[in-house]
C-alpha cells in the first residue's frame, strides 16, 4: 500500500498579505491536499488563498545551525544604525531634527 504524502499548508489571510504557515496534512497528491486544506484550515474563511507544498520541497535554513545573517551585528544595514541623523539635522536649524 503506497503511503500518503505530507503537505505543508500555507495561506494568505487577505489579498496582498504575507504568506504564513497554517499547518500540515497527509494526502494522496496535491488535488486531495487542497480539498483537505480547505476543510481543515478554512472552515471560517480564514484565508483568501491556500498553498499546499509537498514537505520534501521545503528546504530549511535555521539561524542557530546555518548561520542565518552575519555573525557580528552590522548596524550599517539597518535604519536604526543611522539614528544620530536626528542630532546632525539640528545643526541646520529647527528643534525637531530630521524630516519628522
Amino acid at each position, binding site marked *: *500500500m*503506497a*503511503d*500518503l*504524502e505530507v503537505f505543508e499548508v500555507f495561506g494568505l489571510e487577505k489579498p496582498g498579505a504575507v504568506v504564513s*504557515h497554517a*499547518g*500540515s*496534512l*497527509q*494526502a*494522496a*497528491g496535491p*488535488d*486531495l491536499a487542497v480539498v483537505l486544506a480547505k*476543510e*481543515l*484550515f478554512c*472552515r471560517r474563511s480564514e484565508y483568501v488563498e491556500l498553498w499546499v507544498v509537498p514537505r520534501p520541497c521545503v528546504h*530549511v535554513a535555521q539561524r542557530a545551525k546555518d548561520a542565518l545573517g552575519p555573525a557580528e551585528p552590522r548596524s550599517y544595514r539597518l535604519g536604526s544604525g543611522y539614528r544620530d541623523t536626528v542630532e546632525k539635522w539640528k545643526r541646520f536649524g529647527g528643534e525637531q531634527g530630521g524630516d519628522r
Partner: protein
Amino acid sequence: MDMDLQAFEARIARGELIEADDFMPDAYRRQCLRLIVTHANSELMGALPEREWIPRAPGLGRKLAVLSKVQDEIGHAQMIYRVAEDLAAPYGISRQDMLDDLIEGRAKFHNVFSYPAPTWADVGIIAWLVDGAALETQGALLKTSYAPYARILRRICAEEAVHLKHGEDIVLTLAAGTPGQRAMLQDALTRWWRPLLHFFGPPGESTNSDAFRWRVRIASNEELRQGFLRKYVPKIRRLGLAVPDAELRFDEATGKWLYGDPDWDEFWRVVKGGGLQTNERLSLRRLSREEHGWVVAAMRPETAA
C-alpha cells in the same frame, strides 16, 4: 550528561521552542507524544456525544451549530494526529496505529467522553463547561515548548472559544425557559459536575519533574481545576443553578475553592476503560471506521491517482 542533552536543556532554560527536526531527548519525545495522542483521541471521541444530537437538535440553527462543532472537533483531531505522527516517526508508529490503539481500548482518552448525553441540556453543558474545561487545559498548553503543538493549539483554542459561546447560548436559553427546561438544565449540570472535577485529573502530582521543567506540562491538575472553578462557579450560581456539592465554598484565606471528595476511584475506573459508555462509544468509533472505510480507501494514493 551528553552534549546534545546539555544543549537541549540550555535551550529549554532560555525559553526556546523545540521544532520537530531538532534534537530532543527520547524521554521528551515520549512525554510529548503521550500527551498529544491523548489529546487527539479526546477530540475524536469528544465529537461522539454531540454527534448523537445532530438529528435531534431543536431547530435548524442549533442543528447547524452542533454539526459545525462536531466538524471542528474532528478537524482538531486531524491536526493533532498530524503533529503526533511527526513525533512518532522515529518509532515507526503511524496514525493508523494510533487509531487502532484507540479502537482496541489500548489508548487513553478524556474521562468526560465516557458519559451519556441524554438531553438537549447535556449538549449545552458539554459545550459550555466541558469545552470550558478543555480551554483551561489547552490555554495553559499554549506555552508548551514543543512548537508544532503550540502552533496548532492557537487555532484550536480560538475554535474552542466559539464552542464555549455556543454552549453558553444554549444554557442561557434554557435557564430563561420554562420550569421544565430549567429542571432539565439543573439535571444535566448535576450529572456533569463530577466528571468535570475529574476532567483535570487528581490533585497532588509533583510539579518537580522533567515534564514540567521541559514545559511539556505547564500547570498542575489542581491549578487548572481552580482556574475552572474561579471562572464558572459564579456564573453557574448567577443562573440560579445549584452545584451538587454541599462542601463547595471559596476559602478566603487560601484564595481557593474547596470541594467535596469527587470520588477519585470512579475517575480511575473510567480512565481504565470502565466508564458508563466507554465501550458503547468505542463501538460507535469502530462502526464509523467500518462504514466510512470506503472514503478512506477512495482517498488512498492507489485509488486517487
